């Protein structure tokens, strides 16, 4: 898959010209038209996916995952490095969250790290499992920004934090020679071959992702995998089993920090967006009900059946692998995984333990 290159870069005048991210972006996208101007929030919708907005983030970089009531959340913490993604996945929730197509990078990294310094210092006995892949793909712009070369060494020096970089890309070149000290977990979203082909339109194949993961494994990184969203369709069993087979044929289970499972779910307002943008996609026409959090979900009995199969197939290949469900009820946990955390806090503690002591 070709790497994302913007046609136009719009840089906020609030940023210092010596910002390492700005310098890196300009160096790695020499053909892009560069404009120095402020972009108001209400003008963002006038931009296109070919525009890269490099801006100074005004608010807090660190936020808890919004989670959801009624379902168990792992209480992942988000580092807000930017917004949007050029991979064009049909099911992407960002289409409903963000009202513009432009890529956004927050370039005031010094302020981001100061905020983290203060947080880690104030709560020395807490553990912080932090990810950058909530509102964007963690590595999709890394060839331009080189952000991983700042974040990975930074987390390497922390005693009470780990970083999870979640991606679908193979954009791992910058990770090779970094001194990560086991504090960075590189994670890939995986899916069946048909889903990758039909729904993850701009993303690399499963094989390509796993080869990138294997490279990270060789560089000593810990890995994680997210089967999320798992999409139900006739014949899903065979194809997801094939992906699981590919995973364990390429990656050592002992290097996997965790594997998460999450069935496809969506905000009702995403449906007309998918209908409008992706006529070919049939994923929204399966049988969905409105869950207790207002999101559309497969029926509970179907989710249980899907998870139970996935857990069985994964455990057949990697009995010791740590598995968790993303945003599911204790009932679904018990009926598919065999046990359930008592609360969000317990699930968080399990994952923090994996993050700290893996």
């Amino acid at each position, binding site marked *: 898959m070709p790497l994302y290159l913007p046609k136009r870069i719009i840089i906020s005048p609030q940023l210092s010209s010596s910002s390492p991210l700005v310098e890196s972006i300009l160096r790695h996208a020499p053909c892009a038209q560069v404009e120095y101007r402020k972009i108001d929030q209400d003008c963002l919708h006038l931009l296109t996916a070919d525009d890269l907005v490099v801006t100074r983030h005004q608010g807090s970089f660190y936020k808890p995952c919004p989670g959801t009531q*009624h379902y168990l959340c792992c209480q992942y913490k988000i580092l807000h490095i930017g917004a949007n993604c050029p991979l064009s996945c049909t099911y992407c929730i960002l289409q409903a969250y963000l009202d513009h197509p432009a890529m956004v990078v927050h370039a005031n990294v010094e302020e981001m790290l100061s905020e983290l310094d203060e947080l880690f210092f104030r709560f020395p006995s807490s553990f912080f499992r932090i990810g950058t892949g909530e509102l964007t793909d963690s590595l999709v712009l890394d060839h331009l920004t080189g952000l991983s070369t700042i974040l990975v060494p930074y987390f390497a020096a922390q005693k009470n934090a780990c970083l999870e970089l979640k991606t679908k890309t193979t954009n791992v070149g910058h990770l090779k020679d970094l001194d990560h000290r086991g504090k960075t977990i590189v994670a890939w979203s995986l899916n069946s071959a048909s889903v990758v082909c039909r729904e993850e339109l701009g993303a690399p194949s499963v094989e390509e992702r796993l080869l990138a993961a294997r490279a990270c494994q060789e560089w000593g990184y810990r890995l994680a995998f997210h089967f999320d969203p798992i999409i139900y369709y006739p014949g899903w069993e065979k194809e997801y089993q094939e992906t699981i087979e590919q995973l364990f044929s390429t990656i050592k289970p002992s290097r996997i920090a965790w594997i998460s499972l999450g069935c496809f779910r969506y905000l009702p307002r995403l449906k007309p967006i998918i209908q409008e943008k992706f006529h070919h996609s*049939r994923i*929204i*026409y*399966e*049988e969905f*009900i*409105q*869950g*207790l959090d207002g999101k559309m*979900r497969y*029926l*509970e*009995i*179907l989710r249980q059946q899907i998870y139970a199969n996935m857990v069985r197939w994964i455990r057949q290949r990697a009995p010791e692998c740590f598995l968790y469900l993303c945003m599911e*009820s*204790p*009932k*679904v946990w018990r009926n598919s995984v065999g046990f359930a955390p008592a609360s969000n806090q317990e699930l968080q503690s399990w994952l923090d333990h994996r993050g700290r002591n893996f």
Partner: protein
Amino acid sequence: MINPHLINPHQRSNNHKESVGQKVNSNLLFPIRYVEIEKFDLKHQPYIIRYPFAIHGQEAAAVWLEELISSIRRFGLLSPPIVYVGKEERGFIIHGVRRFLACQALGWTSLPCRVISSDIAPSELYQLSLSIFLSHHKPNVMEQARIIQRLQTLLPQEVIIQEFLPRLGLSPQRKVLERISQLAGLEDEIAEHLALGETDPQLGWRLIKLTPSSARLAMHRFLRKLPFTLSQQFEIVEYVQEIAHREQRSVEDLLGAQAVLELLASDLDQRQKANAVRLFWRSRRYPRLTALEEEFNQQKKALRLPEHLELYPPHNFEHGSYKFELKFADLAELRQKLEFLNNLISCEKFKNIIKS
């Protein structure tokens, strides 16, 4: 000189050969002349605003036409239509299409019209036609849609929004313009029902999203077979459309399903049939949910709950709470029901419901 306000058809039919092209009243801005009907191609009349201006084979059309014919027979053509005759002698009706059709039905070969013959740009002619139309009529939804669609080819969008939407009885907002103009893409068969108020515009907006055109027409015909409520219509459109996507089948194919035909031919009354058809499509769209509901209802039936005690499953069978609804008239009835509930807790059939 003929009085242009009262033209006797008998007098006209006696004299019409002599009077074709003859100027009747030169003092008017648009003088009255006799024009030949054959100069008008009724399939291509871009300045007629009225929609539908003729509905063939429909009772409603026949009623107004008969009325008009009888009036013209009795009193003559009181007010001549306004027409434009271009350089190639092609005639375009600007106003008065029904009178024109009535005269044609009477067998006239020509009729007196106010004739615009000077060079006028098509956009001016359309606005003239629109102006006259709006001074006489409140446009129906299809007229609104077609007017907006036409104006979009003639004027900037902002002018249409600010000046014309209020004149059409619409709020001057871009989203209103976009929404209404979509309806202009509907096929005449559907559009005519919309114009006559027989099909709701809300359904029109749902139908426009159904593709291809044959699917829209099939769905519209299907929905006219039974007295579906509007919400039933919405549900059926959504269910069938989504089943078609999921199963990669055409809407027409689905609507012709044997099970549906059997429901349509059943002995149920029309409203019962409508509901049965809706439930059929719901069960096709949500087969697992429907199966769960049916299973729950059967299990619940086996509990033999007393009257005014109702058990509900968790919403959408998602983990959550069951609900009892209890109504009572007096303390004795309440005591009786509470005792029933107390016994229910140890009932195996009830335990099975809660476990599942």
